[in-house]
């Protein structure tokens, strides 16, 4: 175990919750994933909590599961709402964290340093009213209904997607080999070769 990484451990309702300081998150997660005997190889969910009590810090919650050991663990990082809302991204450890962290960023405004593509995912990219799940966010949004309708109607639907998401050629390089092979055989159409970087 990494010294100073464990702030507090709670067992509640049959779940183990581990509080980790922000600066130790990435090394703790790496340790949890790669140490024999831990092997938390599956990241179930990333989410965040802001409490009604404004004194309490925001929490970023990671749900980990070890498929080998059939064990669950919750890891929490506390962030002072007045301070800088950012934690290290764990996309490097679990690829599945990509969209989960984007959702937390979209709804809470928490930035994940090191995330490869931190954009809004549920709200459109030009959404200007703030972060909807924060307690300071009014239920019906900050703008008047007419302004919301105006902005929505003037949005360009195609702009919600990056060029990479719209292009099969770009995605080709990310697919596993067996799927590429199946696609090449023509089972589900032909996949173009990914562009080579010069």
């Amino acid at each position, binding site marked *: 175990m990494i010294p100073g990484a464990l702030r507090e451990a709670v067992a509640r309702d049959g779940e183990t919750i581990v509080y980790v300081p922000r600066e130790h998150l990435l090394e703790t997660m790496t340790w949890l994933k790669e140490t024999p005997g831990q092997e938390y190889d599956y990241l179930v969910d990333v989410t965040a909590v802001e409490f009604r009590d404004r004194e309490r810090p925001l929490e970023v919650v990671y749900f980990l599961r070890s498929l080998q050991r059939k064990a669950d663990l919750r890891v929490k990082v506390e962030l002072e709402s007045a301070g800088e809302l950012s934690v290290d991204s764990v996309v490097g450890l679990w690829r599945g964290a990509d969209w989960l962290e984007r959702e937390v960023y979209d709804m809470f405004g928490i930035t994940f340093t090191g995330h490869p593509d931190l954009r809004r995912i549920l709200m459109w990219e030009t959404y200007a009213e703030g972060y909807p799940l924060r307690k300071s966010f*009014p239920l*019906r*949004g900050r703008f008047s209904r*007419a302004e919301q309708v*105006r902005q*929505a*109607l003037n*949005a360009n639907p195609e702009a919600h997607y990056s060029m990479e998401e719209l292009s099969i050629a770009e995605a080709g390089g990310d697919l596993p080999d067996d799927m590429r092979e199946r696609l090449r055989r023509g089972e589900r159409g032909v996949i173009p070769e990914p562009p080579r970087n010069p």
Partner: protein
Amino acid sequence: MKRVGEVHSSNYLLAKFHDLVDWAVNSSRANSLWPMPFGTACCAIEFMATAASRFDFARFGMERQAFSPRQADVLICAGRLPFKLAPVIRRIYDQMPQPKWVISMGACASTGGIFDNYSMVQGIDTIVPVDVYVPGCPPRPEGLLYGILLLHKKIKGESLFDAVRRRDEQPLDEKGLRLPPETIDEISEPFGNSIHQFRSS
């Protein structure tokens, strides 16, 4: 049903030309409406039930569902519409050839329903003009069929020659809105249980 003309014997009919043309055109339009389903939520399930064999809206001339707006007459918005989909439904509506009609199916499409929040359009009539509102959460298939029959009635009352009885589609204004901003604010006002929640809370 409007009376078109008088049958004088078994051989001829005396009618105004305008009435006869309106009758022929409107009957054709009303009895072969091609719906463009825009299903976003649970109302779409009831919509599918309406389309399937038990209720079968093909009995009312909706034999073919047009999944392309270019070949559709009536847009049926079945389900709540988030702001993110507002430009999409507007574009689908703009792509439909005239004459075209819109049915707003269910409480959410008509008023925003229970979703009186930051992400939901408070009634699709702020985005596209609506001809028939079908209430319900979701409406039963009988409700949607009744709405379709009301639309038939409305279409049969239109006239090619009378601009008052025919509404032509207006494009969005220079602000990109269909209605004046005050009107949108007014029809988006909370009602029912929502009035207990303040805008700022």
